[in-house]
């Protein structure tokens, strides 16, 4: 059974239909890249998978570990092992990083009938992951993303992913706004997370991040549909030609 099975998914944001029939199969252990120009529906797909309010599925299906993902509340998707690294992580002054993450870990553990972690156990887990992302001790006592630079926010997303250990991680434009050093740190964090029982979906406009997180499969999303799929070489082809060569079927058929 595939970890994620998207079938002919259509979705709208407001009154506008953005996804017009996306089909995608992701198996455990794989890394997929979804590439596309602005407005192609990449972020909509990522947000639909996470259950963001305002993103409304209007057709097709999404099965995650065989279960109907679209019927689940956002918090239950997280508890079942789905993680979205946000393109724009939200700043929440007054909520400490450490506290927030411990609440999240324990909410997930409660759902799975696992014993909650106390502060010491939690710190043991967190310390290793912090080193991985090059975050220092002071980071934990800061408010969640509050006043963080773009790079710090993205590192925090991957840090959260490392602590929550999802089965399916969707990275929504995690490379945007990162300089090359930050990109390497983030990519290294993601690569460390690659595992047989985990799948990672990298949503990106640019091929650059894929030099560091090498995907098994690349899909090109244009105007709400996947118009081409292939291996890593497809990303390099896009880098040379841009997205012009991948017009949407609808656009191609118009005069």
């Amino acid at each position: 059974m595939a970890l994620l099975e998207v079938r002919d998914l259509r979705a709208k944001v407001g009154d506008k239909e953005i996804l017009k029939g996306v089909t995608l199969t992701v198996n455990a252990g794989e890394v997929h890249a979804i590439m596309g120009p602005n407005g192609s529906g990449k972020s909509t797909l990522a947000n639909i998978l996470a259950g963001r309010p305002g993103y409304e599925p209007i057709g097709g299906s999404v099965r995650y570990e065989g279960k109907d993902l679209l019927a689940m509340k956002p918090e239950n998707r997280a508890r079942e092992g789905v993680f979205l690294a946000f393109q724009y992580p939200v700043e929440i002054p007054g909520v400490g990083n450490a506290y927030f993450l411990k609440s999240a870990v324990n909410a997930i553990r409660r759902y799975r009938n696992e014993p909650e972690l106390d502060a010491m156990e939690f710190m043991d887990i967190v310390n290793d992951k912090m080193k991985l992302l090059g975050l220092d001790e002071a980071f934990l006592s800061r408010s969640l993303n509050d006043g963080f630079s773009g790079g710090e926010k993205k590192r925090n997303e991957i840090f959260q992913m490392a602590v929550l250990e999802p089965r399916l991680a969707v990275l929504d434009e995690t490379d945007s706004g990162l300089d090359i050093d930050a990109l390497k740190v983030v990519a290294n964090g993601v690569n460390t997370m690659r595992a047989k029982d985990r799948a990672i979906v990298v949503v990106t406009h640019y091929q650059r991040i894929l030099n560091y997180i090498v995907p098994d499969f690349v899909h090109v999303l244009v105007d709400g549909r996947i118009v081409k799929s292939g291996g890593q070489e497809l990303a390099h082809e896009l880098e040379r030609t841009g997205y012009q060569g991948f017009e949407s079927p609808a656009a191609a058929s118009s005069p």
Partner: protein
Amino acid sequence: MAEAADPRARYASEFASLEKEFYGSEPEWLRALRRSGLDRFQNVGFPTLKDEQWRYTNVAPIAKQRFLSAVHLQGDGVSIDRVRPASFTQFEGSELVFVNGRYAPKLSTLKDLPGGVRVGSLAKMIVWEPRAVEPYLGRFAKVDANPFAAMNTAFLQDGAFIEVPKGVAVKHPLHILFVSTFHPQPTVAHPRNLILAHEESAVTVTESYVGLDEGAYFTNAVTEAVVGPGARLDHYKLQRESEKAFHVGTLQIHQERGSVVSDNFLSFGGGLVRNDVNAWFNGEGGDLSLFGLYSTHGTQHVDNHTLIDHAKPACSSRELYKGILDGRSRGIFYGNIVVHKDAQKTNAMQTNKNLLLSKDALADSIPGLQILANDVKCKHGSTTGQLDENAIFYLRSRGLDPGAARALLVYAFAREVVDKVRVAAMHAVLSIQLASRLPYAEIMREVL
């Protein structure tokens, strides 16, 4: 009904009878002070919505009600067990307890006070050492400050007298606790506090107003805080009246050269609440922090007025009031900072933020600056909004329940003010109060 026509007549006749029964034996200066309060109140009467300072708060329910003066209540044996939930005796510091406006020595605890520090009942002080009181009482909270301050001056009963001599630092907080009990006829009490922090002294004072029953009554309190040169006062006011109660309070802060004051106003109870904080810089280099947190639900109405007079140069004030409004409640912030003509190098900042938790809650925010000097740094700002849906989704996407996410965001909003609270007793009560308004109390205990 004739008596509804003008409540002033009722207060005048009440004054006459109290004068005969109680005030007659008082020192002449106090009788004159009372008389000036009564005269002022008779002149102006209860404010109406037409008064700019009272535009947002209709006090007609107070004006209409015939209250029994709490001086007529006997010390009706309120047990220490009933007071304990409101008391801070398990924390460090002394505590003065007043029941229905009257000092209750058996419920009070005085301990660890440095030599020369005087803490006790104002009424007793007036009897024993009137000359310690006379130069201060009514000199700062003047009868023309507002009609309720005038009324308090006419009818003042008792309250705390705190005097810290020059150069003395009081290590532990002094807690003043006013509790009100149910009485079949609504009662009125006029607590009056006098805090004197002389030159280079330091003291922390908390004032709490707590309803022990869910009854209707009226608390009309005035506190005068006189802070000498280089002295430091940390002041807290916690308002936890019955939700059927009326609470009107005036705090008058007078700051001499180089003094430092922080005031934290924490308001949770009361049906109709009006709180005035007036501060006057009387010397250069003074520093004032005013923090407020008001949390309302149901049909509560809480009106916060602050007035800061930068009358002297090179003083700093910063002000942050935050409201959390739920149900059909209404919260008002009306701030005014006046920078006088010669008050150059003034630094003043005023901020009000409101969080609306229901579509029927209402926030009015009226920040204000009047600047008559030209070399100053002044800033004010105001925001009112609901919980950020993006933030709720972000927290849910990490596995938190929607309810927990909302509670967490409300606590996070409150935190900016909560973090300013440095008195353990206040911090503890604040946690309980915030938790009582929201589920997921366990979250807050870890967060705050």
